[in-house]
């Protein structure tokens, strides 16, 4: 299949959840009616799944964190490595430029949706139960959404990886019902909200704090995901990675 340059960019943007809802719907209609385009996107999805499963497993040696924290122990400045002075000279420019642009771009349209998702998470913690359907069985949870939503959410369970599914609820985000799955991590709960294309205009892959809760969001195949929790940032990160691996796996099958 030969793609025009425009189609190739469109396909990439769709795959990355970067199309606006209208464009995403249009592209999905083309995918349904053009088998060649559908075959092409299949190759891209497989490539993504392969990249993520093979390359994303790399973790630094446990020693790295220890080296960093001990090198930054200022009570023992003699232990600081010699490249310190060199690095310092680069520093002012690098950091100043970085923080300025980030500061300007911080708040954006997607934050409104994030605010609603966090509100729903807080409300669920104050309610008698954080879920409308308490169940660790995705065979129970998935059909429970039938008739409540205009789309079928993915409902993975990460019980064996330390994030067991606790249940689900329907939140209202941007005046539309959205699927929220609830997972536990130790004493902490994680709300994972799925919002399909066309329902809310949100930007992908953000990480922020809202009223003391960490929010991570990302988009894939037109669906935007929000994970909200008071768990440690690293744990939420690990959860997000698991979820992304799962959706990447799902979209290729």
């Amino acid at each position: 299949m030969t793609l025009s340059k425009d189609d190739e960019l469109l396909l990439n943007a769709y795959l990355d959840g970067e199309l606006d809802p209208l464009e995403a719907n249009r592209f999905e209609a083309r995918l349904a009616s053009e088998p060649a385009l559908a075959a092409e996107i299949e190759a891209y999805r497989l490539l993504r799944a392969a990249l993520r499963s093979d390359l994303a497993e790399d973790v630094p040696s446990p020693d790295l964190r220890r080296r960093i924290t001990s090198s930054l122990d200022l009570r023992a400045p003699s232990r600081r490595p010699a490249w310190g002075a060199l690095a310092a000279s680069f520093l002012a420019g690098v950091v100043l430029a970085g923080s300025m642009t980030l500061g300007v771009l911080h708040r954006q349209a997607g934050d409104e949706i994030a605010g609603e998702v966090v509100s729903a998470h807080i409300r669920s913690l104050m309610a008698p139960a954080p879920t409308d359907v308490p169940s660790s069985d995705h065979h129970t949870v998935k059909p429970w959404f039938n008739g409540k939503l205009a789309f079928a959410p993915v409902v993975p369970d990460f019980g064996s990886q330390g994030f067991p599914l606790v249940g689900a609820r329907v939140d209202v985000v941007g005046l539309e019902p959205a699927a929220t799955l609830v997972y536990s991590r130790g004493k902490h709960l994680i709300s994972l909200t799925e919002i399909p294309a066309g329902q809310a205009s949100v930007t992908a892959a953000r990480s922020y704090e809202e009223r003391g809760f960490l929010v991570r969001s990302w988009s894939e195949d037109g669906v935007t995901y929000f994970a909200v929790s008071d768990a440690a940032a690293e744990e939420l990160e690990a959860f997000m990675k698991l979820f992304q691996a799962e959706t990447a796996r799902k979209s290729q099958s």
Partner: protein
Amino acid sequence: MNVGDATDQDRFAEVFLPHLVDAFRLARWLAGSRADAEDIVQEASLRAFKGIRGFGGGDSRAWALTIVRNTSYSWLAKNRPSAVVLTEDLNQTAHDRVDQSDAMERTPEAALIAKVEAEEIRKAMATLPVPFREVLVLREINGLDYRAIAEIAELPIGTVMSRLARARRKLLDAISGGAP
């Protein structure tokens, strides 16, 4: 030189340390080896620590990765000067028509990629020029959106899009071409 106190250390632990794995992966795929990546991340952590007061809130991961990215480039400029030079014009060059006609003769890509080994993907990644590899790693391994990638790599969003498309195309071609 007394640059820090407990507060700076707390902030560093909050802002930079949670992103150590992401930082390592970015450096790993820019520099090519685990050992070099750990050195780069350690140097980046020092830069981050010293500049922690410049962090104005917002996306701490993007902030941390910006520093790691810049540190990686300093490292590459010193140790692999040829790697950071991009010989192809990325934005203006229209699609390579020859590549496209080749693509039509190929076996369906999906079937080939399904069979491809991890090792082949690693090799194909290694052949990508750094500016292509960078956007692909920020997107696929670090999970960032186009806007965050544009910010970190200091590129217009349009360039992020075209580099990402070209990077994936090159990988698909390398993998399909290399398979029996």
